[in-house]
């Protein structure tokens, strides 16, 4: 024990004296401070928010999350410290001292490990220290900081960081000790990272949560899962316990660590290396004397000039370096891990509701180039170090450096060898992608696309990183420090934009990326990518020159000596190359700057927020000014797909529907800065009094005020051109194939637009604006006078002519009246024969069209050829929806229903009058296997939902007040659920609703302001969609579907095509209450007017077989009802509720299912069922919202 302590103490002391220990300490302290500063709003340009801005930055939850993430970054440090704990003896050849000392193996290994762990604890103590210091930084927003709790800092240290140190440390320690090398340590860190990424990938499917949680060695996934349903109040108030997922994860990995430590102790031998070679040596020496001394053949090297010889030697040297790099088990392990990663992730790739998509090539590319890219960079960095240090580590450097070869030769050879590494890995990835496609039965191979993306685009990016990595290693000339510099680079590039450093001109190797679409190919992104790549390639040449100048040759050390040598290596050729590269870089950089900052406005996130703040500060006063409403829209939309240009000419008719005179008209523009105004004129004399297109507002004073009831016309001719390329983003609404332009993004909106304001409290505070409510109260007269979809109009007359390329079809709401071709342009005129909301979009692409009919309604799907997979499902859903909705809600107002595909630059479907743009990313390539009971037919669901909006939204819009989206989205959700239920049955719906519950619970935990009851929802996705589904489905169960539909029908009949004033949730709920029996009135209160949660559990379930063959089940259940406030703080509510009590068979089918009144926490039931019961419990199908839905039933024991 004493030796153990001595060894541990020595290891600890010597490491504490090393500068690297304190460098790590300083870095992690800085990172933690920086994190706090960014999250706490101390950095002006930073736009970081970690989850909800209502979660305090020093809440137990936030601290635990920060620890988990920074702890992952500590991976390299843990590897460097514990991996070298034993390995250092072999590297420094000191092993003999210890092996020959009277030290027990356990003391030696244990002592070193304990010492290393202790050092790591010191290093990582920087994280809590840094976070506390971070809170003291000036500029931290006091509202974001909660009360100080020391346990909040200590507990996660013990549950996250310390176990990580022990677990990862044990693994690295074992590798370093047993292999006596560091390479395996690095390789395994890459593999562990892949484990984490795989866990993240698997999470997309809810069913995989437990596996994912266990797979992640860092515990970060487990922590997220443990707390995912924690509402804000709990995140702020509750310590993250070592329980549940986190406990299991920690136990599993600690067990693995124990095994690893055991194996290390067992396998480790106090033996010096090279034991296996003794035999060879002896053999050789035996025949020494017999060997006659032979005269060497005289030989003279050929005296070709060094440079010429260099070029001749290059290929071979490249090959040797490359072979040395890849021809070993480690490279194979990395490549294999990459392949496994891709295969695992591909099982859930693109998955929505646990249902996968066809493995189209772009999806394979997303897997390969998304997360895989991260560790491609790790691999490149790592091998850059290995190659740079290869000779020196083999101690062959002196011999090598004295050889008559030019210095550029080994450098260039290593650089090229390094560049071959990603080539090999990309090829492996391509084959993996093709393999996955084949295995999944997808045979539409696109090798050209693979080659273009993997080798034509991404390889260039990786090559840039290769040059940088080798340069860093050449200049830094210290392997670990070199690796660390590269990590700093990656972090800076990755997170720079969060701090306002968004321009790719100063972020080496970045280019803004691209999104590939089956419809539009690489689209508008490629130009930017290429220019930035060329620019950075020029920079890479400069870097390579620098690397060459500082390339270590000989035993030179010290900066002075190295710089002196670098100076001497500067030859005219070096200068000429540098000059060319500099000129190229300057020219390309200038051209890029011209594109990103001159032709296009360069706006950081902060700049954009500034504009929104300015808009509010300058023009908020105009909000109360009476404004006319649009009554007629007649527009000609000219799309120029290849030029990415759109021009809209036409006329608005405006009518003063207020009781006051309108003396000025204010026009707001969503994209004012990019807009070219060719004409904007009223048919009555006006003067332009404000022209602020930068923030997006123009005001016109009317020479004579517009009295109530009077009309005037606004003629417009507006254009949104595309000039060159932007730094980030691109014009994606008008594209070569697959344009989708929303009218509101070009045309003026009448009056001040509240939606232009900043929303979250923290953003508003940053610009000195008071917090504001997101929506008006339900009684607000201004809100009641507007519909939320197009507040500046009621129902309007609409007609549009859309022009596009001759080979494309263009679509707008309305019915096609005329189609003609003029030169290389094709035109379509659409007219709507009844008033619609002022909400339209135009689309244009080279479509194929699938057609069908439902009674007198024409159904058309406009799609990208090749995306035929789900056309039938969409058409079926349309028919089924029309059946159900017309029978239950009222007639369909159009003679046509069209679904139109658009590129995956956005992934949603949206309902316009008789027209539904539908992203290629959400349904067209879905792969619903009817044979798989788990697959959810989401193309069917999405179609039914969008179709339902033709009623909810387009027939009955909601007033622009709280609860509006319940009227539109929740009703559409309910409608779609009923259509789905008809086709797929209750069991499928149960599965669907489990996803909805999951997303509701996660959604409320990241709420930015406050959670509201459903009836007061303020455009909150997780409430109006997710909770909406759950509530409406349960309501249909409680009061009966027909009953509910009657109420909904009554509401529609009263409000369809009416307004202003528009309806609110009060109107809908009044109808629902009218059909609800008094005994269930509480359900409406609970579901709509408050946030209600249940904590239902099965406590025990036993069965006994009766004489007649039936079974008597005794079931004890637990139930609590809770009401939550806006931040999720729960309080007990009295329980007198009807809740399902169920006994299920092995197939989850009910043997018994009845609502029983539950009034106590614990209730016992005795139920007799006919068949053998498998599970029993309370609310077995999770109709009620419960934060722990899984414990509602339990297996029945006999």
């Amino acid at each position: 024990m004493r030796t153990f302590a001595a060894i541990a103490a020595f290891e600890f002391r010597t490491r504490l004296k090393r500068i690297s220990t304190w460098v790590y300490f300083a870095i992690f302290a800085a990172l933690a401070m920086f994190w706090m500063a960014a999250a706490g709003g101390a950095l002006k340009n930073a736009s970081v928010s970690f989850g909800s801005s209502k979660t305090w930055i020093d809440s137990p939850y936030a601290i635990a999350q920060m620890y988990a993430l920074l702890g992952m970054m500590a991976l390299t440090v843990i590897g460097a410290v514990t991996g070298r704990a034993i390995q250092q003896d072999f590297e420094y050849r000191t092993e003999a001292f210890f092996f020959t000392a009277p030290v027990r193996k356990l003391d030696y290994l244990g002592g070193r490990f304990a010492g290393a762990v202790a050092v790591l604890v010191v290093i990582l103590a920087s994280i809590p220290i840094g976070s506390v210091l971070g809170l003291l930084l000036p500029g931290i927003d006091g509202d974001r900081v909660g009360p100080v709790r020391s346990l909040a800092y200590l507990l996660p240290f013990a549950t996250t960081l310390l176990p990580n140190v022990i677990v990862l440390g044990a693994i690295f320690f074992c590798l370093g000790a047993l292999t006596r090398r560091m390479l395996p340590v690095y390789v395994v860190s890459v593999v562990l990272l892949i484990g984490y990424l795989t866990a993240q990938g698997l999470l997309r499917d809810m069913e995989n949560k437990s596996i994912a949680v266990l797979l992640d060695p860092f515990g970060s996934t487990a922590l997220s899962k443990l707390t995912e349903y924690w509402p804000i109040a709990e995140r702020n108030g509750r310590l993250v316990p070592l329980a549940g997922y986190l406990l299991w994860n920690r136990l599993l990995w600690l067990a693995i660590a124990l095994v690893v430590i055991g194996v290390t102790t067992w396998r480790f031998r106090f033996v010096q290396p090279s034991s296996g070679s003794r035999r060879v040596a002896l053999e050789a020496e035996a025949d020494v004397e017999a060997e006659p001394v032979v005269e060497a053949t005289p030989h003279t090297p050929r005296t070709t000039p060094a440079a010429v010889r260099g070029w001749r030697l290059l290929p071979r040297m490249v090959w040797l370096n490359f072979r040395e790099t890849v021809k070993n088990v480690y490279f194979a392990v990395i490549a294999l891990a990459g392949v496994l990663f891709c295969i695992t992730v591909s099982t859930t790739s693109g998955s929505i509701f646990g249902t996968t998509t066809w493995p189209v090539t772009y999806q394979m590319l997303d897997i390969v180039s998304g997360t895989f890219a991260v560790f491609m960079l790790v691999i490149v960095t790592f091998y850059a170090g290995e190659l740079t240090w290869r000779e020196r580590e083999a101690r062959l450097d002196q011999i090598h450096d004295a050889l008559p070869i030019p210095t550029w030769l080994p450098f260039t050879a290593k650089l090229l060898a390094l560049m071959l590494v990603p080539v090999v890995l990309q090829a492996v990835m391509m084959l993996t992608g093709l393999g996955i496609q084949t295995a999944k039965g997808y045979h539409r191979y696109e090798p050209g696309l693979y080659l273009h993306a993997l080798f034509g685009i991404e390889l260039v990016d990786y090559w840039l990183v290769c040059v940088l990595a080798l340069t860093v290693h050449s200049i830094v000339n210290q392997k670990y420090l070199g690796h660390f510099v590269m990590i700093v680079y990656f972090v800076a590039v990755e997170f720079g934009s969060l701090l306002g450093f968004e321009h790719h001109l100063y972020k080496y190797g970045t280019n803004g990326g691209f999104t590939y679409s089956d419809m539009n190919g690489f689209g508008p992104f490629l130009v930017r990518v290429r220019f930035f790549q060329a620019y950075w390639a020029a920079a890479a040449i400069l870097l390579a020159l620098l690397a060459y100048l500082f390339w270590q040759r000989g035993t030179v050390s010290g900066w002075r000596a190295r710089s002196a040598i670098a100076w001497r290596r500067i030859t005219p050729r070096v200068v000429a190359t540098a000059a060319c590269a500099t000129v190229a870089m300057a020219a390309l950089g200038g051209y890029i700057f011209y594109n990103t900052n001159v032709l296009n406005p360069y706006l950081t996130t902060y700049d954009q927020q500034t504009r929104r703040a300015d808009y509010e500060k300058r023009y908020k006063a105009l909000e109360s000014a009476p404004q006319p409403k649009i009554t007629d829209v007649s527009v000609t939309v000219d799309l120029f797909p290849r030029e990415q240009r759109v021009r809209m000419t036409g006329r608005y008719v405006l009518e003063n529907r207020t009781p006051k005179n309108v003396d000025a008209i204010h026009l707001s523009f969503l994209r004012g800065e990019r807009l070219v105004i060719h004409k904007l004129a009223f048919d009555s004399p006006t003067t332009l009094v404000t022209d602020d297109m930068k923030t997006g507002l123009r005001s016109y004073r009317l020479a004579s005020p517009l009295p109530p009831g009077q009309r005037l016309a606004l003629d417009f001719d507006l254009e949104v051109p595309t000039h060159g390329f932007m730094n980030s983003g691109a014009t994606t609404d008008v594209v070569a194939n697959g344009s989708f332009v929303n009218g509101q993004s070009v045309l003026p909106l009448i009056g001040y637009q509240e939606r232009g304001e900043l929303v979250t409290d923290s953003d508003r505070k940053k610009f000195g604006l008071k917090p504001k409510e997101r929506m008006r109260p339900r009684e607000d007269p201004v809100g009641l006078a507007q519909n939320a979809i197009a507040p500046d109009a009621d129902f309007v007359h609409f007609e549009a002519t859309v022009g596009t390329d001759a080979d494309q079809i263009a679509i707008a709401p309305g019915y096609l009246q005329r189609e003609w071709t003029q030169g290389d342009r094709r035109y379509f005129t659409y007219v709507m024969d009844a008033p619609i909301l002022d909400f339209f979009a135009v689309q244009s692409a080279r479509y194929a069209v699938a057609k069908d009919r439902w009674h007198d309604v024409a159904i058309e799907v406009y799609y990208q050829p090749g995306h035929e997979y789900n056309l039938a499902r969409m058409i079926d859903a349309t028919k089924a929806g029309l059946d159900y909705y017309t029978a239950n809600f009222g007639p369909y107002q159009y003679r046509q229903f069209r679904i139109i595909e658009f590129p995956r630059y956005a992934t949603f479907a949206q309902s316009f009058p008789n027209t539904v743009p539908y992203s290629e990313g959400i349904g067209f390539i879905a792969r619903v296997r009817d044979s798989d009971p788990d697959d959810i037919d989401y193309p069917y669901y999405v179609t039914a939902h969008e179709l339902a909006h033709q009623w909810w939204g387009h027939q009955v819009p909601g007033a622009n007040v709280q609860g509006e989206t319940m009227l539109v989205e929740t009703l559409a959700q309910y409608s779609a659920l009923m259509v789905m239920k008809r086709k797929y049955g209750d069991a499928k719906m149960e599965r669907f609703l489990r996803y909805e519950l999951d997303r509701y619970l996660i959604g409320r935990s990241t709420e930015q302001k406050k959670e509201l009851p459903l009836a007061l929802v303020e455009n909150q996705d997780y409430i109006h969609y997710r909770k909406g589904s759950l509530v409406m489905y349960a309501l249909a169960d409680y009061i009966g579907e027909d009953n509910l539909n009657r109420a909904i029908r009554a509401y529609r009949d009263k409000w369809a095509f009416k307004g202003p004033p528009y309806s609110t949730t009060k109107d809908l709920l009044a109808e629902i209450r009218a059909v609800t029996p008094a005994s269930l009135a509480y359900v409406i209160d609970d579901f709509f007017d408050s946030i209600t949660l249940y904590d239902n559990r099965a406590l025990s379930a036993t069965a006994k077989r009766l004489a007649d063959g039936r079974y008597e089940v005794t079931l004890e259940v637990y139930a609590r009802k809770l009401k939550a406030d806006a931040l999720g703080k729960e309080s007990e509510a009295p329980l007198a509720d009807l809740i399902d009590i169920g006994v299920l068979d092995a197939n989850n089918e009910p043997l018994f299912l009845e609502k029983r009144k539950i009034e106590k926490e614990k209730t016992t039931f005795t139920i007799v069922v006919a068949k053998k019961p498998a599970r029993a419990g309370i609310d077995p199908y999770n109709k009620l919202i419960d934060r722990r839905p899984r414990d509602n039933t339990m297996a029945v024991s006999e």
Partner: protein
Amino acid sequence: MSLALTISGLSKTYPNGVQALSDVSLTIPTGMFGLLGPNGAGKSTLMRTLATLQDADAGTVMMGDIDVLADKAAVRRILGYLPQDFGVYPKVSAEELLDHLARLKGLADRKARREVVASLLRQTNLHDVRKKALGGFSGGMRQRFGIAQALLGNPRLIIVDEPTAGLDPEERVRFHNLLAEIGENVIVILSTHIVSDVSDLCEQMAIIDKGHVLLTGRPGDLTRRLDGRVWQKAIARADLAATKAVYPVISTRLVAGRTLVNVVGDDAPGEGFVPVAATLEDVYFAAIAGRLAPAHVLEAA
């Protein structure tokens, strides 16, 4: 053609303040040249400087018309270098690595290169193990491999830094034979702290310590300078300190439990001292101990 290597005024101070070379001037003719000095004398610094691996602060080194310090590429073309401490790629065979290095030395022709590699492997007695991985080589074998690579490309300047350190006597003899063979027409600089390496092999030598050249000359001449001036006495170990205090002791060693002290002096230093034949070792110790006239005096002699 015989060329001499002329070193003049070479100085080097490391960033940590250690002065490794101080105004070193030497002329090294064709043949074996021994550079003798204790550990840390500056031998390796000098060797590495000559081998183009690091720069000096001041001074010049010329070999014929080659400016060794400036025209490194030219030096490397005629250089064979065996560093004091070197490693090998453990998994590569002797033949493979030698072939690779030969190619880098400019032996482009495949067939000729093969012959050269084979003959060098034979010459260094590694032919039988040429296919074996270098990682399994014994110290002697590795050292012989080192000399084999240093001989690649018919170098005219061969620098071997402490080559016999750690070799067993048999290996050392074998190694000496190897060196003796090659040292006839080229300059071979052998740095060592083992006196017999020099006395056995070298025609010319220099002794350096603390960065200064103390002595240069032929080993025989240098030894003759001390003829009749070395005295020896056997004393008890306990008396050593006292003896050292009184007499100019240059070296002590143990023989069968008794301590023999060597003392330099023109006359018998005192009672019990007997004259002994001077050896190169005495010269070395006397020089290190500062009991010999400075270098230039002897050179003149």
